[in-house]
């Protein structure tokens, strides 16, 4: 269990702390910065847990902050600690918009209050932002407007300890709507010849619920394992953009993970996804698929290095998607040596610029229609003197994109049934599909 939580600046010096149990000396945190420094000097392998004098320093990095949890016992559940620290950042982000050194310094009070509410004696308690916001109403300095305060003194809502701890009753919306976003992120590693070395699809189903009362939702998707029997005429079937041209085959999702509102035992036994949603936006479930995918945006990159004089880059990008689809905000990041300079570019579409901070050339194409092919060439100067012993940094070409109205896996929502037992209102589910690049959509360059 956690003894204390510290917010430290980029050098590891404490800014704010909350001590939950006094089994560690107050000076313990002062050891954190030197420990970190010492480790950095020794090697570049810095695991997120340090141990000194019987005290465990478990930390995560968030923007320019270190968030450190101190614990004494080896029996401390370290997974819980890291999960909590990440959750803490998530909650604070909803209060402060961006959590960094400056915003922490501006918002001591609200952070104290939240730390107090989210953890007691080192045991995580209530971390659901939507519920916390009902009784932690301290004004915070952020870009958003403060929550409107009610006249009555804030009290903890009774639901925080109920089995539906994430939703207040008596929520009323004029129009009852639920929005489903199915977002698939593609991670792919290719080599320069266009061979896919590995690929995976990480999918998320995000829900934005604007529903009154205590609605019970039932989601049907075309997964093999998921029971998707659907009672005709019970609610409007959702039409999808991907159905056309594709067979209604069932696909098999792996590693399904659900938001805590989903009745897991019901899913385990009957394979039905049912839940009472929190109000507002949340991620209902995520999944992973490891089916082979062909590159959606392919780049043929050709780099020629004339050492000591210049480097030439030729790049042809092709959108290998259906003609009717469009890939938006395509960004192609091509690495160049860090000592290259004086760039000159030739290109037909989008915009190209040199980003010296990243030692790369960034080619942006706002909209890229399926089947089209664009090209770009760049030339940069290299210094005539070569630093020989510098290790050659091998970085891949990174590509980012978004393709709306399209999922790679072919996942479809068959239905979303909304029942509110008391209010019996008519509700409208909306579904959107989008495919985008994951954080690892890359092309490996040969030497």
């Amino acid at each position: 269990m956690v003894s204390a939580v510290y917010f430290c600046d980029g050098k590891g010096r404490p800014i704010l702390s909350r001590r939950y149990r006094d089994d560690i000396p107050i000076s313990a945190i002062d050891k954190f910065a030197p420990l970190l420094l010492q480790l950095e000097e020794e090697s570049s392998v810095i695991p997120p847990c340090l141990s000194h004098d019987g005290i465990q320093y478990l930390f995560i990095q968030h923007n320019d902050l270190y968030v450190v949890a101190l614990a004494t016992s080896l029996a401390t559940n370290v997974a819980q600690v890291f999960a909590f620290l990440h959750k803490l950042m998530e909650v604070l982000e909803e209060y402060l918009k961006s959590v960094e050194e400056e915003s922490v310094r501006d918002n001591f009070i609200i952070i104290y209050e939240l730390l107090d509410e989210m953890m007691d004696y080192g045991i995580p308690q209530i971390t659901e932002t939507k519920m916390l916001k009902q009784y932690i109403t301290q004004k915070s300095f952020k870009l958003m407007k403060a929550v409107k305060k009610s006249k009555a003194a804030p009290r903890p809502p009774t639901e925080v300890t109920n089995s539906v701890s994430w939703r207040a009753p008596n929520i009323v919306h004029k129009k009852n709507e639920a929005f489903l976003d199915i977002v698939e992120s593609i991670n792919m590693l290719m080599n320069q010849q266009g061979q896919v070395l590995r690929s995976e699809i990480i999918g998320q189903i995000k829900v934005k619920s604007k529903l009154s009362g205590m609605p019970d939702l039932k989601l049907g998707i075309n997964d093999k394992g998921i029971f998707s029997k659907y009672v005709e005429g019970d609610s409007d079937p959702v039409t999808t953009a991907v159905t056309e041209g594709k067979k209604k085959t069932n696909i098999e999702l792996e590693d399904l993970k659900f938001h805590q509102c989903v009745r897991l035992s019901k899913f385990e036994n009957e394979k039905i996804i049912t839940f009472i949603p929190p109000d507002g936006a949340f991620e209902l479930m995520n999944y992973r698929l490891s089916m082979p995918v062909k590159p959606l945006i392919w780049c043929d990159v050709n780099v020629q290095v004339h050492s000591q004089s210049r480097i030439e880059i030729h790049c042809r990008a092709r959108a290998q998607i259906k003609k009717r689809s469009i890939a938006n905000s395509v960004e192609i990041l091509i690495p160049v040596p860090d000592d290259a300079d004086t760039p000159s570019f030739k290109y037909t579409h989008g915009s190209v610029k040199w980003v010296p901070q990243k030692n790369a050339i960034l080619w942006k194409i706002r909209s890229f229609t399926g089947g089209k092919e664009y090209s770009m060439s760049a030339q940069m100067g290299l210094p005539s003197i070569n630093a020989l012993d510098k290790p050659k940094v091998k970085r891949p070409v990174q590509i980012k994109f978004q393709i709306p109205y399209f999922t790679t896996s072919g996942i479809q929502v068959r239905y979303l049934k909304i029942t509110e037992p008391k209010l019996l209102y008519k509700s409208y589910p909306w579904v959107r599909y989008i495919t985008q690049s994951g954080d690892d959509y890359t092309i490996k360059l040969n030497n």
Partner: protein
Amino acid sequence: MPPLDKRIKKFLKNSIRVAPKISNKGELAELRSGLVSQYPQTRKDAIKKTIQQMTLGKDVSSLFPDVLKNIATNDVEQKKLVYLYVMNYAETHPELCILAVNTFVTDAQDPNPLIRCMSIRTMSMIRVDKILEYVEIPLRRTLQDDNPYVRKTAVICVAKLFQLNKELCIELGVLEDLVCALDDNNPMVVANATASLSEINAMDPTVVSLLDLIQSHVSQFLLALNECTEWARITILGALAEYTARDCVEAQEIIDRVTAHLQHVNPAVVLSSVKVIIKNLVQIEPESKRIVMTKLSSALVSIMSTPPEMQYVALRNIRIILEKYPTLLTKEARIFYVKFNDPLYVKLEKIDILVRLVDPTNLKQCSVLMRELKEYAMEFEPEFVSRAIQGLAQLAIKCGDVKFVSKTFEILLDLLESQEALKNDCCIAVCDLLRHAVGNEKLATDACQLLSTWPVNETLLLSDSAKCNYVWLMGQYPNKFDELQDKLLCFIENFVEEEPLTQTSILVTVVRLHSKLPGSVLQNVLELATNQIQELDVRDMAIIYWRCLSMPNSDQLIAELCSSVSPQIENTLHTFTSDVLEKLLTEISSVSSIYFKPQFDGPRGAVRHHNVVRGRHIDELKDLAKNELARKANDDVLLDFDDDEEDLVSPRSSMAGGRAQSHMDDLDTLFDFGTSSSSQNNGNDNIDKGVADLNLGQAEQQQNQQQQTQTQSKINSNTQDLLDLF
């Protein structure tokens, strides 16, 4: 309606914010005047400013009474602020909190549950015995509160109270209430009560019998699991992991109930579920085991798409689980391939897992992995590359196929030639492969051909273990080296400066090759090792050789030694001993599982005792507090106050904690040693190897024992262990 001017006045009074001006000099005075201001807004602002100053590290404890005055208010927000302030000083200035005790007691009956909680939470944190006595009634009442939010806070307060004053806590009988809370109808109360009880159990296992309680509540726990928050689930799963099922039916039932939670989005819930399942897995029928294993593997894999810290925890735990169930993740290898933006610490763990999970009989999979590792070896981060090269050697040895080994060997030699920086790692890897492929002359020739071309100067090999391996190679294949004598002499020249591994290796090699070297060399090295080396292992080893040489049948003995062939290495992956492994499996997802150091079994030592202000009468304490404040008020320049503080309080017994820690360390070293000595063939354990090479017969044992008595004063556990190997 009052006249307009009155209304305006009232409006101004309520809304004007006279923000305290912060100047460097009179800050405290300014805050103080703000705190007693007639404008409520200003008072509130002043409290906020005070808390801000407190956070910035300023000692604002002298404002305590002024802040405290603001606690009597209907404004919950303001009350909260005061509590924040009080809570902060509860730890450092417990005696000041006496002043607030009456308010606490009143607040514990406030109609607003939020305030009831704040009061009880704060009160149970203040380390003054007398205050703790005031806790009794509020605590009892809040334990029975109608509101579950209050109850869930109160159950934790019992553990806090226990930490501060065990005797009082037992005397009050709140422990019984806590046990009753396990049957509460609210799952969150149940979870917090469980957490509280296990905390108490960790502090003193004699007070409550946690295991019995868990046993009698298993069904409640299983029911509550579906109903509560993610954190409560973790607590309850933690308790379930302590419980050993009666029979295979019950074990199966627990597993069935828990597997659903493998799909929770919170990775900590997933790992806790994994822990419960692993615990019960041994008991269930083999046929249902297969299904559970599939679910386990997919759950572990899913954590690979969480933040890097979580991945790290998972990877370290997977390494433990894989040792028990080596085939668990064999099909999932590609998930563990390194992504270029993974942090380095994750990358290194991934390589380790990749080599471990691969199926050694599946040549295709091995080759795929070999190609992957080869790619890694051509990256740029030195630690990563070094680990990849080590991985290549480990993989080849694990696979064992002759062709595969030679293929890896070629890769290593290629790398060796291409990059200067990789020489150290490649040298070690090549030698490891040769230890595996004993008798494969072709490999040995190839290796020596390349390695013997290096001019021997120190810049080439930097790391201790690389040098050690190089010298070992010379000893093994003396005929394949050119200018062997010069090279060896060069090492001997620096003998004293070398690190222990290299020294032992030189020692062994010189003994092995003594007939090929000038007669004085052996004597010279032995003299150096016995006279000038501080390292006991090296010195003892030299003394043993010395003894052997001076025995009557030394010629025969030495000849026997030199002709001995070291045993083939089957596996270079580090393994746990079986009891360490079993222990670690019960500690999944804890800090100990990351360090691979099982927890110390006995009671966790005395809880570090805190500076509880004890045995004073309450009035006396109040006086004390007042004096304290009066003294400070006079001191405008705030002097370092901590020294006085120390007199007040009983010294923290860091001794007790320290002792427990050292116990732990002892234990850890023991375990470390246990593992390394049991896995003789561990790549770097060259001391062990050297000793094993010696192949000393039974006859020498007595000699050694005699030896031991002579040098007994110097012998440490290390050498003891070495001797045990004979």
